[in-house]
């Protein structure tokens, strides 16, 4: 499998007044296309900082980050915006949908920034919403949808520009266990069926158990990186 992500000695240091707080202290990682990775660790372990760097939202203080072979740490803000638009889909714990805006329009949002015509936007958004099982909820606004449905809308939004990578930051954190399992099933289905790489941040072991590879962060370093021996598989092959 071809290389998707390569981190070379990535450091990140925050300045709090006069004190320098190291968040990442030299991360070396390679993730291939089509992997399903769970990133685990306690809060303050640096996993969120690392995700921000992977998502082209934050710059490493030192070290290099390659996305599909391209060194992206030194690109301009506009180039980052383009990468986020085309190559990365984000799924957040708090869904982060636009309120008072229909599911359809929420999913169309990323396409507003890459110049698709309105009909094409509409067609694609409808398509991904039916892929996540919401074809009968197109006109519902977030407050008319359950948490699980909202997260499905968010996943549809992440998928709509057909990126090779989805970054999911605690996607089940606000959901009950039944709904959580449904969402994880959806991720597994996307990973297996569409070959989309998924990097999932979680601190819950039973959520991480859905991934094929588990990476553990601690104090800004990777302390564990191993394949998951017992993947909970929720998709029938």
């Amino acid at each position: 499998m071809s290389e998707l992500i390569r981190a070379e000695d990535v450091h990140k240091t925050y300045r709090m007044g006069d004190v320098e707080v190291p968040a990442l202290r030299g991360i070396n990682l390679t993730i291939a296309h089509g992997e399903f990775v769970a990133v685990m660790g306690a809060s303050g372990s640096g996993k969120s900082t690392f995700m921000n760097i992977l998502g082209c939202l934050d710059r490493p203080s030192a070290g290099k980050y390659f996305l599909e072979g391209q060194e992206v740490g030194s690109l301009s803000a506009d180039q980052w915006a383009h990468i986020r638009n085309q190559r990365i889909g984000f799924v957040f714990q708090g869904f982060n949908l636009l309120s008072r805006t229909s599911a359809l329009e929420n999913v169309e949002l990323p396409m507003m920034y890459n110049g698709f015509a309105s009909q094409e936007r509409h067609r694609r958004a409808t398509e991904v919403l039916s892929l996540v099982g919401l074809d009968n909820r197109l006109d519902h606004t977030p407050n008319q949808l359950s948490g699980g449905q909202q997260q499905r809308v968010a996943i549809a939004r992440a998928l709509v520009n057909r990126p090779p990578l989805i970054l999911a930051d605690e996607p089940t954190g606000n959901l009950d266990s039944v709904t959580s399992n449904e969402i994880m099933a959806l991720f597994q289905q996307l990973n297996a069926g569409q070959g989309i790489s998924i990097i999932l941040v979680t601190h819950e072991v039973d959520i991480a158990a859905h991934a094929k590879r588990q990476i553990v962060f601690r104090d800004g370093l990777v302390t564990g990186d191993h394949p998951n021996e017992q993947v909970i598989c929720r998709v029938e092959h």
Partner: protein
Amino acid sequence: MQGLMTLRIALRALARNKLRAFLTMLGIIIGVGAVIAMVAIGEGAKSTIRSQIAALGTNVLIILPGSNVQGGVRAGFGNVNTLLDSDAKAIALELRSVAFSSPVLRRQDQVVSGNLNWGTLAQGVAPEFQQIRDWQIAEGRFLHEGDMDSAAKVAVIGQTVARQLFGNDDSLDAVIRIRNIPFRVVGVLAPKGQTGQGTDQDDTIMIPYTTMQKRLMRITWVQSIVVRAVSAERVDEAQEQITLLLRQRHRIGPDREDDFNVRNLSDIAEAATTTARVMAVLLGSVASISLLVGGIGIMNIMLVSVTERTREIGIRMAVGARSRDIMLQFLVEAVVMAATGGLIGILLGVGSSEVIKQWAQWPTLIDPAIIVIAFLFSGAVGVFFGFYPARKAASLDPIDALRYE
């Protein structure tokens, strides 16, 4: 992001908070409406004042003969006899900036009618004098061209003279005598009242200037020439042209002084233009203050809106919006509010100036240019006051924006 879509996003964002958008626009609406109405009232007043001042004679020029210098003694104006009635005719005929001109000869005379007599100012003038000085006729007629040619012994008398010589009796066609020469009264002037200096303008009688020259004064020149320029704006132009023409007619070499003097009632004209300017400045400052306040209202609401929608900004950035997309979105929102407010304000201003015209009987005048200016200005206010909040939105850090509660 395409312009049309940006506009749609802005409209939708405003539609979500209709009352707030309206209240924000209200600042601009009132500002622009007030400006339009005030300028309309001001322009109306200005044109009224202008026509009133024109009646006072701001566009009137007086040409006096130059001073005579003999052995170092400078005798003052009017002591040489260089002006002729042909000069007056040439000025009116040849200069486009001049509407009318008339020779004027004046002397103080005793006027007799029956057993009454009255000392008054006798003026020898041409028919054009009526238009130059805005004299109205109460009875009969003014002097006409035929009277000039024949040096007719006819007179038009002022109200004061009519009262002193005839009381309540009819004065028309009566005969009055000046230095024993009989004149027939052909007209009575409408009253004009006193001048600013306290001179009674109605205490006068007017006779043909030719009659004055030949029968009363026995001279061939004229004492002065009065000229009315076509408009107050062209008085200076008329003054220059008259000077050139008279120098030419009087064959004055380039290095010699004028033998005449052209004067205008510049103090009145000055007062008029100063009044107009003060008015313009006053209205202009009211305009900018009210629009400034409206603009600050927009800025305030846009700042609130940016803070409220921090998370939305974060989401948009995460899915690929560039800084300039965000900037444009908020800027367009501000401009849409300002321009919509401007449009409604224009309607309000035009409407209220109509109401003022109808109900308060105050003349109002709406210059189409002011409408265009008001609209463009309100748009500019949107850009100016929307810029800072929009830049603030665009410079947010996506990570912080996404985490914002």
